[in-house]
């Protein structure tokens, strides 16, 4: 199929119309989306600044720096937990951007372009994961300057695990983004994530919980990510349970997002 395009000089140039490669996914698209996210001061403060502040408040006590915790010190362990918290917020808010886009009608505008829904989700996920990586790195840099001690390779593995596992929360953000048609969805999700982080043992170790609460805590979505991310410290970790937790919640959120998304594209 072809058409003709008149140019300013009046010559007629035949053009072949095509569907964009990769369904419209491109670095241009990812770059623009990242730029937009970084413009959102609230998002930047919550993802890149707050987890580090929490770490400095809760993790840099003089005793903690001297207290060994597996292969590192307690400060490092708290640093990793806060990095997981930061990655959770970053990836959730990245995914939840779809809520804003639906609320203002941008997703409808995009339906007038060749952008494939799968490519759209891939862009959202990539933006969310980029922010997640930035959140982890921010806490690790602050942590290393503030006395966290852990051999480098263990530190890197901790960071990678925290980051990769936060994919679960990118899916959570997408699911919530499609579920809650609100422009301010993060005002609901922010406190929700704080509760999940507490319940999952990111702020207080589960050993401080009563037996019943500790058992329940292991069923919440932040537990698995935190447990896996801290595994490189060595010592006692129920890695099988943590992995099961991550996979199960990941599946729940991905299926939930896919379900809401398919309903959404039917209606739009």
């Amino acid at each position, binding site marked *: *199929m072809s*058409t003709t*395009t*008149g140019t*300013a000089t009046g010559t007629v140039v035949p*053009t*072949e*119309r*095509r*569907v*964009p*490669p990769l369904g*419209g996914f*491109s670095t*241009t*698209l990812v770059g*623009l989306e990242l*730029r*937009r996210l970084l*413009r*959102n001061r609230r998002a930047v403060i919550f993802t890149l600044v707050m987890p580090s502040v929490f770490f400095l408040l809760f993790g840099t006590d003089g005793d903690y720096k001297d207290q060994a915790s597996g292969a590192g010190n307690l400060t490092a362990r708290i640093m990793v937990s806060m990095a997981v918290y930061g990655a959770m917020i970053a990836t959730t808010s990245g995914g939840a951007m779809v809520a*804003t*886009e639906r609320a*203002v*009608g*941008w997703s*409808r*505008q995009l*339906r*007038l*372009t*060749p*952008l494939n829904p799968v490519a759209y989700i891939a862009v959202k996920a990539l933006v969310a994961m980029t922010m997640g990586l930035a959140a982890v790195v921010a806490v690790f840099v602050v942590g290393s300057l503030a006395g966290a001690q852990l051999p480098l390779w263990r530190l890197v593995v901790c960071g990678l695990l925290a980051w990769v596992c936060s994919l679960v929360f990118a899916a959570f953000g997408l699911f919530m983004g499609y579920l809650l048609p609100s422009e301010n969805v993060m005002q609901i999700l922010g406190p929700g994530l704080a509760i999940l982080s507490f319940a999952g043992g990111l702020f207080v170790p589960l050993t401080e919980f009563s037996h019943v609460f500790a058992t329940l805590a292991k069923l919440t979505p932040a537990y698995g990510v935190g447990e896996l991310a801290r595994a490189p410290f060595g010592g006692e970790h129920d890695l099988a349970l943590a992995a099961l937790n991550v996979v199960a919640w990941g599946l729940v959120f991905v299926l939930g997002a896919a379900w809401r998304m398919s309903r959404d594209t039917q209606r*739009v």
Partner: protein
Amino acid sequence: MNDTTPAVRLAGVTKTFGSVRAVDGLDLTIEPGEVVAFLGPNGAGKTTTVDMLLGLSRPTSGTVEVLGGDPRHAVALGRVAAVMQTGGLLKDFTIRETVELTASLFRPSRPVDEVLDRAGIADVADRMVAKASGGQQQRLRFALALLPDPDLLILDEPTTGMDVQGRRDFWSAIRADADRGRTTLFATHYLEEADAYADRIVLVRHGRVVADGTAAQVKAMAAGRSVRATWRGADTRALASLEGVDSVDVRGDSVVVHAKDSDGVARFLLTQTPATDLEITSRNLEDAFVALTADAPADTRDREGVLA
């Protein structure tokens, strides 16, 4: 694809939402190169029809073809583009970024600077969308629709929020493209825009086409013209007895006669009375619009499809 493929073909299209029939057996064919105004009162089914033309929703029954194929396919290839009332913009992009993002999706795409210029927003391109006026945002939607250089452009209330100059610029851009062969379908409630810029007017009511023709034909369907003359002490009885006269009003020294046969009235006034300053005006499109789309009058059903 050959030249006889219609730009738009709707055949027996219905769309129901629960018990509401938004579109009720709509038939409409638009040939390439036509500029068609789609008019109707709120709730007549205009936006629902536009949604189906863009593949945003599927008809309950009937056929919807755009440029000889499936609407979604035409959208994916950039052959059809639209300025939608409901298409939202992201506040935290600049105008230019919004265009860049959309341009990255079309193969091929017109250059970003060209469409910014044509839409008249090149000078405010670096402004955040949140800081842009309603008219500038509407021009931005127009710029986005120009990117794929579409064969068919669909506009739903395109000039909402634009000032007079903006409307004029907008329509001259639309006409220039139409002269190059772009098919354009626009829904509007500015009747003077339909009158001035459309080759053809399609009036819809309750999801059906009630009138379809040139502006002059549609106006004529609302029956007759008015003849105004200066005639002190006019003989209203004589005027009312003329063939095809609907009403006679005396306003001071003037008399205004509404008649189907305006020529007959004029001839009578000029040859057999002392009347001077004769003026014959067709009813305007607004009168036609009200007459043809108003609810209730039983005779409106007879008019359906007269020109369709």
